[in-house]
């Protein structure tokens, strides 16, 4: 496991403190704390949903279900170790993604039943970029960089496939991709 896999201790301890505060109150009495936890977790769970479901609405549904189960887990004491909040949420995400794929009807029933109890929807969305600005930044890239980004993000080809097309190694493609994305970020900012 790489060093990037380390859960950030500062952020996670802040989350864990919040979990402890919620757990210290009788079930359902920590509305503010639950809202705050929802506010923190919703954008993170939504990212998980986008990655695995590749759909904004499905990611929003996943977010609601995962947070519902998480809050219910907190109220019922199933989340015994506040420091393991991220693991608990990750496990829940996986379970719900499987469930979403398996049982669309049950999902809708659950959402209909509990929708009113949930805090307001997560306002964080993936930013939408200015097309013209992005096109201008793409034009500034080297030809090879532009082709690599289009093949990877439009064609959804792997580094191996792109490497085969360009006669380069997959490692080279990753380097080109990394450099091109860095230039795009810099240009867009």
């Amino acid at each position, binding site marked *: *496991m*790489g*060093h*990037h*896999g*380390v*859960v*950030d*201790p*500062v*952020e996670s301890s*802040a989350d864990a403190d919040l979990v402890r505060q919620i757990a210290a109150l009788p079930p359902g009495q920590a509305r503010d704390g639950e809202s705050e936890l929802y506010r*923190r*977790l919703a954008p*993170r*769970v939504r*990212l*998980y949903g*986008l*990655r695995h479901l590749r759909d904004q609405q499905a990611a929003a549904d996943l977010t609601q279900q995962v947070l519902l189960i998480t809050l219910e887990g907190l109220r019922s004491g199933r989340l015994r170790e506040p420091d393991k*909040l*991220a*693991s608990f*949420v*990750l496990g829940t*995400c996986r379970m719900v993604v499987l469930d979403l794929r398996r049982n669309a009807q049950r999902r809708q029933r659950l959402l209909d039943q509990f929708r009113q109890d949930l805090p307001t929807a997560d306002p*964080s969305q*993936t*930013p*939408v*970029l200015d*097309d013209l600005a*992005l*096109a201008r930044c*793409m*034009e500034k890239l*080297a*030809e*090879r960089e*532009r*082709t690599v*980004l*289009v*093949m990877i*993000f*439009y*064609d*959804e*080809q*792997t580094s191996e*496939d792109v490497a085969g*097309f*360009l*006669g380069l190694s997959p490692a080279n493609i990753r380097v080109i*991709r*990394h450099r091109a*994305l*860095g230039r795009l*970020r810099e240009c*867009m900012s």
Partner: protein
Amino acid sequence: MTCGHPIHPEVLADYWLAVLASLEEESVEEHLLGCDECGERLRELIALAQGIRQLARKGTLQVVVSELFLERAAQQGLRVRQYSPPAGGKVDCTVTAKDDLLIGRLAADLTRVKRLDMCFCDAAGTEQMRFRDIPFGPARSEVIFNYPIEPARSLQASVLLVKLVAVDEQGDRLLDQYTFNHTPS
């Protein structure tokens, strides 16, 4: 709040592209579920990825593409207009409001080419724009490029002469040239 162990941008890109090994993916996900800073950087990456996809779908980019790109575009229901002038020859071309992508296919023998430039020239052959070191496929027999469709729609009747030029220590060597005779639809 600053992340003490930020996820490397390359790993974030691999994560989004679903090419991480499962253990590494798990550790990245656990981190992301506890870290807003890395989540924000992933969100920026997703926005870039979505933006690139949109530009490619709209035919906005001047970019060398692959046969797979065209297959995917067709699968997505995009209307692709393609022209393949013979080497040294001409083709009459146009573009309509219904077209989504405008593609040029330039057949050439690229087997001994180290670096390939593509030059857009006027009817007299004077170079107007040069695309340096363009990629070409493993068959080394063709260059497929997407011509930005919006500017093409507003073109008057005109001639675009495209030259493929091999570049090495000796300098430029013209491989072939192709003439596109454009008329508005």
